[in-house]
């Protein structure tokens, strides 16, 4: 037990220690030092995988008397920890070349280590409070990494925006967590079980959902992820594709037992909507990274939808496969950007991320090309690739859920699974468009052979490994069996057999959609199409739908308009305030002064008069009565006599 604790502590802290030592050791040695922290970390995580499969590791301690916090690494956590370590290792390798010569390289590795440790702790946390703390740390380190080139005001602004959007959503998570801990007494993720539906539970469920939507960049919070592309590309691969954005899905996966049907439906609707909206937005982007960002949002939408429809095993599987191929895509994009940057560094107008300048790159970056295509096909959901398996599971789950709930909830539930299928058609279109435009056709800017374009260990190794990770055999033996995941049985037990034709229909339909999508993209964006020839002069879409897509449904713009409208509203209220409210207040003030003057007169004349009158009476009576007390004994005797006679007369009559 104690050995496990030390093991766990090392596992969680090694990336951070590596990063800190790298920071201290200067920018030339930093990559090597950071790798020295990451490689043992990765090996430890494999060991942890082994031990967690044998026995779940739980560690609880009393934080303050009567209040326990806890870590817990079960099979799912261990898998994701190994995944994060693996992707982080690849990104550490890749960054060493990608950011070579950057003045802040040691700072970069410190931030990267900090992020990795935060993410690992988030996955290992069992208590909701710990989860929240590391959730925030992950958001904060993401902010640091997006704003790595903070000297550029636009990039610093993008980092701030991403952070602020996350903060807004985190308010929801905070509400959920506090409600869960204090009122509902559900403190440990591993002890959640289905509860009786209540108002507070609904509120907590929606709070957690909002937090997850913010972190996983779902509608209506998805605007921050494309902005987060301001960070270095390896960071995008690690944080904004494979790990951090999946935290929202992970949270939903964990709290799924307590989500009541209303929250589940909302999750499914928002997930499907986001998947569709982001896929549409990805079709018209020019920036190579933004296409990938929107596709990430779209795929996360699938996962969220999967949780919502009760196919959380498929969602988890998709989270796993998506991490490999999306990290591969981002690192491929990083290699492309790195190459273009090198061969065009004399041209200052040149934007190394703009696909309008690319084309024909397969000749110059062969390994990147192959890896990118494999990962892209996995993303498209073509059979024999990993993405097909997991997406298949989610689509099947959505269809099954719709068919089961259509009677009780109405026809609209089919819209959710239909949106999933429409997205499955859109995905290969934008992936195909990107591959055709970047790697095929003629070069649209200056290109030359450049022998350091793909350094062996730093670029080729991660690209090849991640490319292999996008193939089906890494995940399941049967390339058509969505429930054949190697780890599926360990995590979720034996998959139940479904007596229905829906899985078969889903498979046929999704294969047809994937192939059809690629065909459409070939027609529109293939090397011979007219669009591609004129693409370098493209100025952005002109049609309404194109604009809608290019501006990602105007969600961000509508937020801007909302804030402008709000400003105008405040100005109107300001005017009302000055013209009407102020005048009323002023006249009330004048009235008060007049009234108080009247009151003062009344006070002086009447109240004071009464008091003075009372005083005058006592003074007069006193003066009269002092005559009795003259001090002359005979006078007093006279009074005595008078009184005596009076008393006698009183008693006699």
């Amino acid at each position, binding site marked *: 037990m104690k050995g496990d604790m030390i093991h766990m502590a090392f596992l969680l802290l090694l990336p951070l220690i590596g990063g800190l030592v790298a920071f201290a050791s200067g920018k030339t040695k930093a990559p090597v030092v950071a790798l020295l922290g990451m490689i043992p970390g990765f090996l430890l995580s494999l060991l942890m995988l082994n031990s967690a499969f044998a026995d779940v590791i739980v560690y609880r301690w009393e934080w303050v008397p009567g209040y326990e916090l806890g870590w817990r690494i079960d099979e799912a956590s261990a898998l994701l920890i190994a995944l994060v370590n693996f992707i982080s290792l690849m990104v550490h390798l890749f960054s060493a070349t990608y950011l070579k010569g950057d003045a802040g390289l040691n700072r970069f590795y410190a931030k990267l280590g900090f992020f990795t440790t935060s993410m690992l702790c988030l996955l290992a946390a069992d208590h909701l409070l710990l989860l929240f703390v590391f959730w925030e740390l992950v958001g904060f380190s993401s902010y640091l990494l997006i704003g790595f080139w903070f000297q550029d005001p636009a990039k610093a602004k993008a980092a701030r925006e991403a952070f602020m959007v996350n903060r807004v959503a985190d308010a929801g998570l905070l509400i959920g967590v506090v409600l869960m801990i204090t009122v509902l007494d559900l403190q440990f993720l591993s002890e959640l079980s289905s509860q009786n539906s209540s108002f507070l539970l609904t509120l907590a469920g929606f709070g957690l959902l909002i937090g997850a939507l913010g972190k996983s960049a779902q509608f209506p919070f998805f605007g921050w992820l494309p902005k987060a592309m301001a960070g270095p590309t390896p960071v995008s691969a690690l944080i904004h594709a494979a790990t951090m954005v999946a935290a929202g899905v992970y949270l939903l996966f964990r709290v799924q037992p307590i989500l009541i049907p209303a929250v589940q439906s909302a999750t499914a609707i928002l997930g499907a909507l986001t998947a569709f909206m982001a896929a549409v937005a990805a079709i018209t982007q020019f920036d190579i990274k933004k296409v990938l960002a929107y596709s990430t949002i779209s795929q996360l939408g699938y996962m969220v939808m999967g949780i919502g429809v009760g196919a959380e095993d498929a969602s988890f599987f998709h989270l796993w496969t998506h991490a490999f191929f999306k990290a591969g895509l981002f690192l491929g994009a990083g290699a492309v950007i790195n190459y273009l940057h090198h061969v065009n560094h004399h041209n200052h107008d040149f934007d190394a991320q703009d696909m309008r300048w690319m084309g024909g790159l397969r000749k110059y970056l062969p390994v990147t090309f192959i890896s990118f295509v494999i990962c892209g096909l996995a993303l498209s959901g073509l059979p024999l690739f990993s993405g097909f398996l997991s997406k298949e599971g989610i689509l099947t789950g959505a269809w099954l859920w719709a068919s089961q709930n259509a009677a009780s909830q109405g026809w609209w539930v089919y819209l959710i699974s239909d949106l999933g299928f429409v997205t499955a058609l859109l995905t290969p279109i934008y992936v195909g468009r990107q591959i055709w435009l970047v790697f095929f056709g003629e070069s649209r800017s200056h290109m030359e052979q450049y022998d350091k374009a793909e350094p062996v260990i730093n670029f080729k190794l991660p690209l090849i490994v991640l490319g292999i990770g996008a193939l089906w055999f890494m995940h399941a033996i049967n390339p058509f069996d969505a429930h054949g995941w190697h780890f599926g049985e360990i995590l979720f037990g034996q998959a139940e057999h479904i007596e229905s034709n829906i899985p078969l229909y889903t498979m046929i339909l999704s294969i047809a959609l994937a192939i059809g999508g690629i065909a459409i993209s070939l027609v529109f964006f293939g090397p011979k199409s007219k669009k591609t020839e004129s693409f370098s002069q493209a100025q952005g879409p002109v049609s309404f739908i194109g604009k809608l897509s290019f501006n990602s449904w105007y969600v961000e713009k509508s937020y801007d308009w909302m804030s402008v409208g709000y400003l105008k509203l405040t100005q109107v209220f300001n005017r009302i305030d000055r013209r009407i409210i102020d005048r009323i207040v002023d006249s009330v003030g004048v009235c008060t002064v007049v009234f108080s003057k009247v009151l003062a007169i009344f006070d002086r004349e009447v109240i004071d008069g009464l008091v003075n009158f009372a005083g005058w009476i006592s003074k007069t009576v006193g003066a009269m009565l*002092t005559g009795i*007390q*003259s*001090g*002359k*004994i*005979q006078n007093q*005797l*006279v009074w005595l*006599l008078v009184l005596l006679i009076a008393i006698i007369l009183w008693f006699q009559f």
Partner: protein
Amino acid sequence: MSAIPLTYYLVLSAFLLCSGLLMVLIKKNAVFVLLGIELMLNAANLNLVAFSKFNPNLDGQIFAVFSVVVAAAEAAIALSILLNIYKKFDSSDLDDLNTMEY
């Protein structure tokens, strides 16, 4: 002997009392005030003796004797106080003895 009825005694006694009272109230000199008090006392004594005359036991007469003795003692004390007052204030005029006046 029994020709004088009680009313005569009482009238005489009332007259004595009133004259004593008058002296007490209007005389300036403290000595005369004391004399007035003696008169009032003797009016009371006269009452006691007169009532005793019509009631054959001697209680009233004995009481009157007591009263005379007490009056003598009282006169002695009062006069000695008066003497001391006179020594202190150099006057026996009651209007001058007003140190208790506010």
